[in-house]
């Protein structure tokens, strides 16, 4: 996992603390704060992956810079054409955010959805800085909101992230299949979810995205209580999505629960890695930097391969 790259937390790391982020109401300011702080600490160039692509030719007009005249075309056609270049993005970037009811759980100040929104905002901001086209899809058992990737949609993405609410039951396969149809141009897809489904079902849902050529980065958001199951008193446990309730004596079940969860996580990681998807488990009590590093690494790798 990316744990090796988290050792270089810098002076801006305090801005990555989820508890601090929870007090910043504006998502854009939050994202900017996080990303700038993160990058400043990283001492990396903010223009990594920057390039200029050819757009079109147009006839020379007096006043145009003669350095931009395409002399090769003049040689063939004997006409002066200006070569226009477009400061284009490197890729499409879309966040696929799970807003099912189970994401509305949080044992401390932040719910998993809050954490996911911050993460999505930060990644979107970061990508926007990289001139990527930014899009957003929120889904539970169907697509809730869809913002196609575009340079101009960053504000919309942030607005929708801000408004995102979890409340309904979730299902991965249906909405992700629709997204596969919607996102025809390959790009970077960041999927943020708690993946309360069987690994087979998860892979079945994610498989088409990867097959379509998208770079899939998976962030598995889990609350620490979901991981550790520290409950003591015998209680009735109610499912946030189905509202089913069962009596549980946590002390008796804790070890078994942890084992089952660990097996689930291991299976997800193994299957995703095998499918060349980047899988990262995020503990909502931990800072966001691990997620950012993970994204950065993936982005860099894609730049190299391209």
């Amino acid at each position, binding site marked *: 996992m990316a744990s090796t790259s988290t050792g270089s937390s810098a002076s801006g790391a305090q801005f990555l603390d989820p508890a601090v982020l929870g007090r910043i109401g504006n998502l854009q300011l939050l994202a900017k704060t996080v990303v700038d702080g993160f990058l400043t600490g990283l001492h990396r160039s903010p223009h990594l992956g920057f390039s200029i692509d050819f757009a079109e030719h147009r006839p020379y007009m007096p006043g145009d810079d003669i350095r931009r005249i395409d002399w090769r075309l003049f040689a063939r056609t004997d006409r002066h054409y200006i070569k226009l270049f477009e400061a284009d993005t490197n890729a499409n970037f879309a966040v696929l955010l799970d807003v099912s009811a189970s994401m509305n*759980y949080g044992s401390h100040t932040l719910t998993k959805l809050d954490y996911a929104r911050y993460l999505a905002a930060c990644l979107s901001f970061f990508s926007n800085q990289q001139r990527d086209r930014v899009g957003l899809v929120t889904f539970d058992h169907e697509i809730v909101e869809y913002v196609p990737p575009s340079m101009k949609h960053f504000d919309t993405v942030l607005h929708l992230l801000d408004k995102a609410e979890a409340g309904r039951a979730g299902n991965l396969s249906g909405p992700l299949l629709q997204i596969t149809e919607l996102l025809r141009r390959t790009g970077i897809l960041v999927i943020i979810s708690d993946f309360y*489904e069987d690994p087979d079902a998860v892979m079945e849902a994610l498989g088409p995205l990867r097959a379509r050529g998208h770079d899939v980065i998976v962030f598995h958001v889990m609350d620490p209580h979901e991981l550790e199951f520290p409950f003591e*008193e015998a209680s*009735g*446990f109610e499912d946030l999505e189905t509202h089913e309730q069962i*009596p549980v004596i946590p002390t008796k079940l804790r070890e078994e*629960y942890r084992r089952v*969860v660990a097996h689930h996580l291991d299976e997800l990681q193994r299957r995703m890695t095998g499918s060349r998807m980047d899988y990262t488990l995020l503990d909502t009590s931990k800072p966001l930097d691990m997620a950012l590093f993970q994204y950065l690494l993936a982005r860099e790798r894609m730049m190299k391969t391209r």
Partner: protein
Amino acid sequence: MSLAFLVPLFLLGIAGIVVPVVVHLTRRQRKNVVHFPSLMFLEKIPYQEQRRRRIQHWFLLSLRALALALLALAFARPFMDDAELGLGATGGPREVVVLVDQSYSMEIGDHLEQARERAQDVFDGLGPLDRASVVAFSQGATVLARSTSDRARLRGALDTLQLSSGATRFGPALKVAQTILEESNLARGEVYMLSDFQRVGWIGDEGVRFPAGADFIPLPLGEAASVEENYLVTDVSLPRQSVSGRERITPTARVVRRGGSEPETVAVTLLVDGQVLQQQDVLLAPDAAASVQFPPLTLSRPHTRATVQLPEDALSADNAHHFVVSPGAALGVLIVEGASANSNESLFLRRALEISDDGRFRVTVRRASSIRPVDLEGVDAVFLNDVIIDGGSAERLRAFVGEGGGVLVALGEEGGWPASAGDMLPGTIGPVQDRLQGRGGRLGFLQYSHPIFEVFAGPRSGDFTGARFFRARAFQATDSAEVLARFDDGSVAMAEHTTGRGKVIVWANTLDDFWNDLTRQPIYLPFMHRVTEYLGGRAEAVPWFTIGQVVDLANPEALLTAGLVSSEAAGLAEGLDQVALTPSGQTVPLPAGEGPRYLPLEEHGFYTVRPPGTEPERPFVMAVNVDLEESNLARIDAEELGAQLTAPPGSEGRALNVDEAASLQREDQERRQSLWRWLLLAALALFMTETALSNWVSRQKAGAQPGLAG
């Protein structure tokens, strides 16, 4: 003997034991709900609610169940039913009252001991549910033990039984028995009377009626046929004489013999201050009486104790007759007459007072219209014989009267009273009125209840009607005055006004023969004696009292009657604390204070009264003799007595039917055993133990599981 329940319905409450078990097994912790994102992983774990279905603290549960069971048992009112207490034969529990005679006649033979044994027999025959009372009686009745089934207490009450000096009176004891039976809720009543059943103890129907269902069972003691021979002293006369200025007394005892067959010589002994003074023999035939006169006895010291004693016989209490004598003090009389009065103005009065066997009056005459303080020294009564005194003398007389002296104002031609001291008189003095028509006036009304005229009340005890009054002074009595005598025309002849402790009497006539011929009547001398004794505060001393009398030691008049002279009586009545020593040697404290200080005389012999902690040489002594009625040993028919007490047959009874009796019996058994109290206490203790234990267990559990999350 088996366990039974008074209210078995409450045993259903034992079913409540299952409540804690059911609650324990079915209770869900609904208040603790944890919202969790998904139960996906939890549902994969095989799990059952085994812990809730398994009772972990068997001991606590047992405690709870046991406490509930005890509670239900307590409410069911358990008791050990003694089947031996069958009701069919006995007809229900009894309220038994044992009346034991303790009058002094019970000393004959061993009647009291017999009574004790037979009472014990009665108590031994009591059933387990019967209750009994012990009442000792003589003149009054004392409850020694009331309505108890405690045999030891009844036995203890019998042990305290003692002879008294009182005479037999059945009435009070039977009244007490009636009250006990009426207050009892038991089915039957039985009254046992242990007595020698003297006829004198029953004066007829005294309003005693036992409730229906109560039986009177007489248990006569001794043989009814045998009449005991008994000697007794019935009276002692104590005539006084004054010889050579010294007072002498000649005791004469009257001795009676009851029963017997042959004449017997009896030694009669006179003891003075505990020492035998003289002994005389007297021959007494059966059922005869004789007088024994002892030689004159010179009285030199006050409160002299004397006893006329007969030899011991079966009934000893009436063999001694005690009395107390003191030398009589002569009354000092001052006669004041006008300076210009006739020489025989007070002749009749003076002569009348000088005539007495025992020289009881010491007369001084003063011819002046003023009275000096020295004139009043040693004087008990003052006669103002047709004289008008000055105001200063009147004030001196006011003080004299206030301290207990007496003044008689005789109104003749010259007589009067200073207006400044008019409030001392019982009225206002008017002019002279003549009664010359016919044969003059007479005394038409006399206040015979007054001490002065009391002795003249009987027939042939003195005749005032022969006296004629030709002239008198008009006298208008005030409302507060007591008119002692009126003339036949209704005008006041004699009136009295009480001032302080003394009194002032106005006689609206002369004391000589000028206005009337009373002085020539035989009645004149005793009349003047009575007036003088009354004014001087002399009361006839009682040489002995009888058992049952009560003396008020705060009442000077009662003390005067008891033999104290005026100054002593006043001193004792107003004095500090006193203590009375009874004949048996017990002390009775008589603390000073407001109100009466009663001393009941309950023993025969001498009662000594003195200040506590002192040993006066001649203390105040009162002699007490037994009631001689008790010496009459004639018996009443006990059956006849019982017939007067119990309800006639056929009257509506109070007896309960068998079911009611059985119910009462069960209630009584339960009430006496009171097992429910112990069960309730045990249940309480178990509840407290259970609470403490469960708290401890909870604390232990909480200590092992800190930091709950969720």
